[in-house]
């Protein structure tokens, strides 16, 4: 078995474009996930029971079902309810954001809970509202602690986003499949795809490490 480097070379531009799209879905999904996660994470700590139960249900449902099934639910099942086709890009972002939001909610919840109770009491005793204390005292400290797990979530999403290839959305993995359909060069192309994923995850991991050190020194 020998590698056909010419094939890889020809495929690289297409694959890199796919990698760009993979990065785009990941960044958008984790971005929206961050928003969802912050709200749900705080809601899981709310004293109002219905709010807490709803947040718990969301997190349990998403974490207890496969992302692939969630993608199918959004892309195939949702249109039958709303009676309208959904664009694959929208479906991909939607499913991945909702998925990421649940995991990030847990990261936020743990981060907030790791902050000493005395911090909230100090803020409140100075006359600040719950929201002000969260915004200026608790969250800035929690953020620092959740950078490493957020980095892990980003890397996980980078890899898991390959699942949206099943709804025909042309990110890195789907591009690979399409090129193989044309060239039959499975080994070369899948190897190239794997290496590109590896380069991306490795780079992100290093960036997160840098950020972590930056924040440590305040």
């Amino acid at each position, binding site marked *: 078995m020998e590698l056909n480097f010419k094939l890889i070379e020809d495929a690289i531009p297409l694959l890199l474009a796919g990698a760009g799209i993979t990065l785009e879905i990941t960044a958008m999904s984790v971005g929206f996930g961050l928003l969802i996660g912050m709200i749900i994470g705080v809601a899981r700590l709310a004293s109002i029971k219905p709010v807490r139960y709803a947040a718990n249900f969301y997190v349990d449902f998403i974490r207890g079902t496969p992302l692939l099934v969630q993608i199918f639910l959004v892309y195939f099942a949702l249109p039958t309810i709303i009676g309208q086709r959904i664009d694959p890009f929208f479906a991909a972002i939607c499913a991945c954001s909702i998925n990421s939001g649940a995991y990030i909610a847990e990261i936020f919840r743990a981060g907030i809970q790791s902050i000493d109770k005395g911090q909230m*009491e*100090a803020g409140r005793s*100075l006359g600040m509202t719950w929201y002000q204390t969260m915004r200026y005292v608790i969250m800035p400290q929690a953020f620092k602690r959740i950078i490493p797990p957020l980095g892990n979530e980003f890397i996980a999403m980078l890899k898991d986003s390959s699942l949206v290839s099943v709804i025909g959305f042309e990110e890195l993995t789907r591009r690979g499949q399409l090129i193989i359909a044309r060239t039959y060069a499975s080994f070369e192309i899948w190897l190239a795809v794997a290496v590109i994923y590896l380069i991306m995850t490795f780079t992100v991991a290093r960036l997160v490490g840098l950020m972590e050190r930056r924040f440590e020194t305040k």
Partner: protein
Amino acid sequence: MSTEMIKITGLKKSYGSLEVLKGIDLTIAEKEVVVIIGPSGSGKSTLLRCMNYLEEPTEGTIVVDGIKLDGEANINEVRKEVGMVFQRFNLFPHMTVLENLVLAPMKVRGIDRKTAEATAMELLGKVGLSDKADSYPDQLSGGQQQRVAIARALAMKPKALLFDEPTSALDPEMIKEVLDVMKRLANEGMTMVVVTHEMGFAREVGDRVLFVDGGKILEQGKPDDIFLHAKEERTRSFLSKIL
């Protein structure tokens, strides 16, 4: 005594079936320094924490500076006027000393940064820490942190200050510097309620000493009356153990 600063009537507090406070009536006058002593688990900290609603009373009323505490709406109004100093300091570790002092005045009172910083620097001078304005809390000793915490509470220009065992987490050699600051405040006429085990401070600075045991005020009076001529056996036995 002059006007009432804090008036507590029929205060009860339970955690589930455990009743921690069993009916407290207490009036604290303006400029009065009240020291609360008692064995651990007696409810003295809970009583203090009820005064700014960090603990919500199960029963009874609390009126602070003419405002009756009864829910979210006016709690922040009262907390603005009643500062609190904690055993574990609870400084904000991600902010410099100066930022710790200006945050609440700016966000709660809406004071501009320049004025807030001027007040903060003045207060840091008062607690002897002018040179630490740009330090972070973890660069300070325990005694210094507690003095910053007192300055932070003062930055809101409160009418009364609550101290929850302010020297209990300190190394012995740092206790004096904190007590000195508190004595100066008392002499300047600040209304203070202090939960402490520092009997020397209680005798020297306190206008009144309360002995709390089993969720009730068992005995109260002038420091010398309590320390030298306590009427209750429980008080005498407690004092004999700690003096």
